[in-house]
Every structure is written in C-alpha cells, then in structure tokens.
C-alpha cells in the first residue's frame, strides 16, 4: 500500500480550498460585469453550483469521472455515493487520501459549469439553469474529465494529449458550451444597440484577483504533490497571467487610447485560462509567451460576437474557449521534457489538436441536447418583461442595492406574526380583565 505523504496532503487540502474560493471569485467577476438589476442572479448562478455540483459529484459524478475505466469512455460505478473513498490513496494520487483527491476534483467540477453562466447572463431562468447545471455536470463534465484524466481515450494512457490542469476539460469545454448557450438562448433585448456596460468595475477587478489567487491551487495543486513540479506550475501560472495583462492592455491602449481596468482584469483571466493546460509542462519563459499571446488574441476575439451577432454576454467564448485552445495547442509546442517528461513538437501538437476538436464537438452537441430538454420541460429564457425588470427581482424577489428609502410595509414575516400573536394575547387579557370587573 502506498504511503500517505503529510506534506502532499497538507498542500492538496490547501489547494482544494483555494480552488473552492475561485467560484465565489468568479461570481464577483461576472456580477460586476452585468447591469445592476442582474447582479444577484448572476452571483447566484455561480454560487448555486457550489451546492448542486457537490451533491451530484458525491452521488454519481466522481465515480463517472474517476471510477474504474470502462472502455476508455467512462468511469465505472464503484465509487457511487463515495463508497470506498476513504483514507487510502488511489492510483491517480498515490500519496494523499482518496477523500482529498475527490474533494480537489470536486472544486474543478464546480467552477467549470459556473464559467458557462457568463454566456447567458441577464436572461436565463433560475429553474432552467438548475436543470442544465445538473445534467451538464453528469453528461458533459464527468465524461470529459474521465477521457482526459481518468484513464479515458484522450489522456496520456491512450492518445497522449496532455492537459495539466484543465485546458480541455475545464476551459474549452465550458467555452464551447457557452457558445451553445448563447446561440440557443438568443440575444438579450437591445443587444448591439443599447449600452450594456459593467455596473461595478471594482467587483470585476476583485473577482479577477480572487481567481488569480485561487488559480495557484488549481494549477500548482494539479501536481497532486508538494514538490518541484508544483513550484514550477506556480511560477508558470503567475508569469503567464502577468504577461497576459500586458498582452491585453497594450493593443487596447493603441486602439482606444486608454488602458482600462476591465481590460487588465480580462487579460489576467485570459492568461490564467491559457496557462492552465501548460502550467505543469513548460518553463517560465514559455509561460510568458503563452500568457502574452493569450492576452493579445483574446483582446481581439471578444468582439467577434459583435461581428457574428451572437450574444455571449460576458465573453466566455472569447476568453475561455479561445484562451483554452491557445493554451492547449501551445502546450504541444512549448512542453519541455526537463519539466515533466513531455516535449513539444509536431507529434504532440497533433495530439493536442485532436483533444481540442473532440472536446469542441462533444461538449457543443451534448450541451445543445441538454438545453433542448431543459427548454421543453422547465423553460430556459425569462419573459421579456422579466428581462427588462431584471433577474434579481423576477427570479429571486430581491434587489442587489437599495440606496434610498423606498416606502413599503411588512406583508408577512416571522416578526410580523410574533407581533400579531402578542397583540392578540394582550387584547385577550384586556377582555378577561373587563369580564372580572
């Protein structure tokens, strides 16, 4: 039996918590980018993934992704309900308890569908999202995680595509699912005419900073050990992100005359996305190149939506799909055998391209089918009137911000009920007193 390493276990517990924190970070990133009337609904779309995916993952998701391989396609049901997932390690993570590996992978399963929410922001029904989220986690995320990391046909055991922390499984997957959502749901009312501008840019920067911070767990934690590879991935992650900020704001400055904070935050996310598959295979200078390339390319691709007239509200396609593809392909170019045993070259690049194409095709088609099912059952898009009023009010009966006294009174609440009971009791006593006199 392999021996548990306490250093590895400590780092993986910390990494797991770091990756968990990315999802609320994403909620702020997206929440700041939408209009004020949709801030809560947008935050909730990410936050609810922490709840829904955790339950799904413990019941079935983990075993489909990481259970014993069945024909290179899916994991067997050995670990359903987390049966047998305990203190003993599994082969994929030989020095930490299986529980820790399961929890670490769970955090990836949570943030991936949360990334998609940016594409359909400001117009999706909450109930529709819950259905899509559940089905997508089981039918898209778990199989892809199995194909790449769980012993399936794309990973190192078979095809040999390399993806250190989720360029295909997380970012291309979420990015192309986002494209399917944007196309299926259609444009927001006023898209391309009205100014849909971010309502809280400090939230955007705060969210991007939290993502950057959590991403150290995402990438360096994907070493599944506290060692030199983790350190290398940590440095690559940081340098790529730094370069991507510059890669975004330099062309922005040239083209528009100013460098923007939303641009810097978006560049950081593009860099984090692109370095994800490469982080455990490339050296620091390659990381700079990958990050800078991602920043420049994503700056230009986010506005393709205006040319092609699809409403990917918060640019999930332009940042995650495009950034993910850049990262997955450049991993095949820049991989350095001295870092982790894989060398870049035409052969590796070809394998990377196959993995990218399989991910694009599978995720798009299955996501489309899931959208269709959810649309026919609970419905996906809010009514026009609800969209105009904002999702905070129409989907959650709340407002993100109340800056002034708006009038109003209590209709029903525990406090009001308690007050009513007290009133009844008091009048009852008065009646009794009256009777005794």
């Amino acid at each position, binding site marked *: 039996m392999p021996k548990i390493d306490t250093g590895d276990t400590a780092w993986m517990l910390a990494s797991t918590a770091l990756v968990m924190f990315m999802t609320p970070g994403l909620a702020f990133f997206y929440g700041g980018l939408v209009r004020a009337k949709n801030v809560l609904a947008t935050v909730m779309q990410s936050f609810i993934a922490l709840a829904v995916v955790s339950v799904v993952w413990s019941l079935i998701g983990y075993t489909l992704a990481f259970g014993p391989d069945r024909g290179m396609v899916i994991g067997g049901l050995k670990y359903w309900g987390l049966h047998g997932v305990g203190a003993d390690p599994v082969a994929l993570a030989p020095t930490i308890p299986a529980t820790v590996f399961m929890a670490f992978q769970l955090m990836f399963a949570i943030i991936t569908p949360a990334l998609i929410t940016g594409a359909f922001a400001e117009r999706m029904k909450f109930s529709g999202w819950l259905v899509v989220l559940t089905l997508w986690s089981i039918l898209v995320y778990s199989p892809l995680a199995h194909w790449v990391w769980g012993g399936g046909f794309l990973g190192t055991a078979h095809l040999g595509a390399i993806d250190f922390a989720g360029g295909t499984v997380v970012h291309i997957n979420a990015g192309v699912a986002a494209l399917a959502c944007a196309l299926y749901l259609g444009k927001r009312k006023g898209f391309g005419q009205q*100014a849909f*501008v*971010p309502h809280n840019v400090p939230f955007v920067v705060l969210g991007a900073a939290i993502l950057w911070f959590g991403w150290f767990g995402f990438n360096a934690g994907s070493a599944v050990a506290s060692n030199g590879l983790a350190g290398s991935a940590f440095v690559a992650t940081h340098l790529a992100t730094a370069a991507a900020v510059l890669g975004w704001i330099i062309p*922005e400055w040239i*083209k*528009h005359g*100013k460098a*923007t904070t*939303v*641009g810097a935050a*978006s560049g950081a996310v593009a860099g984090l996305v692109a370095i994800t598959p490469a982080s455990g295979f490339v050296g620091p200078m390659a990381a700079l190149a990958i990050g800078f390339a991602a920043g420049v390319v994503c*700056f*230009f691709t*986010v*506005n393709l939506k*205006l040319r092609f007239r699809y409403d990917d509200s918060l*640019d999930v396609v332009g940042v995650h799909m495009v950034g993910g593809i850049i990262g997955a392909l450049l991993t095949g170019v820049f991989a350095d055998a001295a870092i982790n045993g894989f060398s870049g070259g035409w052969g590796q690049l070809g394998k990377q391209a196959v993995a990218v194409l399989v991910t694009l095709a599978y995720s798009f088609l299955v996501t489309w089918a899931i959208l269709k099912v959810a649309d026919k059952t609970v419905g996906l898009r809010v009514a026009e009137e609800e969209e105009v009023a904002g999702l905070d009010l129409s989907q959650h009966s709340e407002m993100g911000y109340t800056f002034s006294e708006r009038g109003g009174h209590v209709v029903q609440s525990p406090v009001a009920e308690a007050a009513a009971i007290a009133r009844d009791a008091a009048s009852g006593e008065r009646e009794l007193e009256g009777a005794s006199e």
Partner: protein
Amino acid sequence: MKLVVAIIKPFKLDEVKEALRSIGVNGLTTTDVQGFGRQRGHTEVYRGAEYQVDFVPKVKIEVMAHDDQVDQVVDAILKTARTGKIGDGKIFVLPAEQVFRIRTGERGPDAI
C-alpha cells in the same frame, strides 16, 4: 423673491458655495443631476467596445434670493462656475411666490 437655479460642473461646487457665502447667502440646496446640452456625452470603452454615454453628471444648485440680491448671486455663480469650456452649465432665475420657514411658520422674505 427669486429662485436661482444653476446647473454647474461638479468640481466647481466648492468655489461657487464659498462665493455665495461671501456675499451673504446663508443657505442653498444642491442635487446631483445628469443631462446633456451642447457638451453632449462622453465615450466609455469596455473590452474593446466603445459606448456613447449621453448624460453627463452635473450639480444643480438652488438658492432663494431677495429681489435686490439676485444680480449679485447670479454674478457670483457666473464668475466662479465659468471655465470657458463647453459644458459650464446654465443659470435660471424664477419668480418665487412664497417662502415658509417650517420651524417657526414665518413667511416671506424673512423666511429666506
């Protein structure tokens, strides 16, 4: 009595306030407002997309003035709020029918 309403550039508010105080104005009301005139709006850029924002933020000042004080008040605002660039704002002078001080019930010029 006249109500003097001025729409000015927000960064000029302090100067205007001091100028009015120095000529004996002992009360005014301000509101943050937005609108457009000849200055039109401004451009904002988010993720490479440029947006035209039509309404520019301004501050509205309301001052009640005695009839013999009106010219002085208007002069003070004209002098201090002016930058010479487009978008300096406007001053409106309106007749005021009556003024009450709520605390005491006084009315007319004494209540200003």
